[in-house]
């Protein structure tokens, strides 16, 4: 399978503080990869480096074989190939639900208004928000906002979808509706890279799980291998901590 994204020796530091150290990994076409790890392990930073919301301090990011950090690439044209779903939703506050899913298509992809509307409606239906097209983001609940944000990303018909802790800012009863949509997407063959704290979800949908600890990839493997027989001591520790908290809740 073709590698969509390949990262080599990626580093990111803020001053003396090294957040990512020599990261190397890749995402293949049609693969669902989840990144797990405790807070501050660098998972979100890694995701944000991939679409250059954070500029890496060193290393290479290859998108379909081309190094996009070599300075010759138009960054907005690269970013439109990657969809991003944020922890804080970040819906465009000045647009209603439908326009949130249309503005990128019209301005960035130069689609006609009619085509953009058709595409937007199609994906709003996928996430079950087609009835709310006239609502403004402020009028929606967290779970609804996140589903619209997913539809907005899908409307751009990206090559890869990046999810940055998409359920971490949600009330517990809304986590389910968002995970349900994401599971459907994962099974539909989309290429997805997901940073998450939802272990059951990661176990269920991932083709591969990456465990990050203190800015490095400590271990990666199939969900079966990672959750049932982790090789590294720190992976075991992390999973034990997480599932103890989980059981207590």
């Amino acid at each position, binding site marked *: 399978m073709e590698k969509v994204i390949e990262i080599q020796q990626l580093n990111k530091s803020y001053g003396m503080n090294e957040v990512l150290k020599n990261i190397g990994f890749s995402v293949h076409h049609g693969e669902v990869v989840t990144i797990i790890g405790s807070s501050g392990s660098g998972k979100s930073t890694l995701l944000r480096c991939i679409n250059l919301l954070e500029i890496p301090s060193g290393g290479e990011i290859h998108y379909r074989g081309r190094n996009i950090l070599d300075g010759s690439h138009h960054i907005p044209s690269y970013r439109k190939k990657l969809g991003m779903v944020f922890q804080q939703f970040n819906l465009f506050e000045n647009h209603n639900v439908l326009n949130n899913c249309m503005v*990128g298509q019209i301005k960035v992809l130069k689609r006609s208004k009619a085509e953009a509307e058709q595409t937007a409606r199609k994906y709003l239906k996928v996430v079950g928000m087609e009835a709310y097209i*006239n609502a403004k983001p402020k009028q929606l609940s967290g779970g609804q906002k996140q589903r619209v944000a997913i539809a907005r990303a899908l409307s751009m018909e990206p090559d890869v979808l990046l999810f940055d802790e998409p359920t971490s800012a949600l009330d517990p009863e809304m986590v389910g509706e968002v995970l349900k949509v994401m599971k459907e997407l994962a099974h539909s063959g989309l290429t997805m890279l997901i940073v998450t704290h939802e272990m059951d979800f990661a176990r269920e949908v991932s083709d591969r799980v990456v465990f990050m600890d203190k800015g490095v990839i400590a271990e990666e493997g199939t969900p079966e291998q990672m959750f049932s027989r982790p090789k590294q001591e720190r992976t075991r520790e992390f999973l034990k901590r997480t599932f103890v908290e989980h059981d207590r809740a």
Partner: protein
Amino acid sequence: MSLEWIVKIVEENWQMFLRGAGMTLLISLVGTVIGAVIGLLAGVIRTIPTPGRAAQRIMLKSANLLLTVYIEVFRGTPMIVQAVVIYYGSAMAFDFNMNVLTAAFIVVSVNTGAYMAEIVRGGILSVDKGQFEAAHAIGMTHMQMMANIVLPQVIRNILPATGNQFVINIKDTSVLNVISVSELYFLTKSVAGNNFRYFESFFVACVIYFVMTFTVTRILRYFEKRLDGSKSYEMEPAR
């Protein structure tokens, strides 16, 4: 008796007052609108991220420096002085006699622009960082992001401050009498002089100024409400 004089002055000079009020409104409206456009442009330029290429970086640095000088100079000097300097200065420097009305428009616009640039900068800073990230992540360029996502939110945010600037302009255009612009203060002075009735004439001007500023405030409040849109929304029927 003053009251009789007020009535008499209004009866005999209402056309003058009306003309002055009209001129005051025209200058402050044009000045505020052009000033707001200057402010928006300055705000957009001042928030462009530092480009990678050296040549572009130098250009952006110089543009920012010029804007800073402009803002500091026009915020740091009184408009009455700016009016005299621009009106008589242009005549001396370019040997060109500017129409007073043109000079008035320039002075008020450029002065307002300096204040609006700071108001817009504040407005852009107050837009949530997530909005910028989402626009970038979807593949928008700086200009696309500004035009479609950020500025519409900035304009809503700065509307109260812009209204305030408009009200300030209605009152402060009175300083343009130093270059003989026939606005309300200038014409009131001549009415007062002709009748030797200062209190009564300026009392009338006072009422007119207040009516203008109050009306403008109300109209802007109405616009703010309309921009916010309705609190409810229509559900789309399933199909």
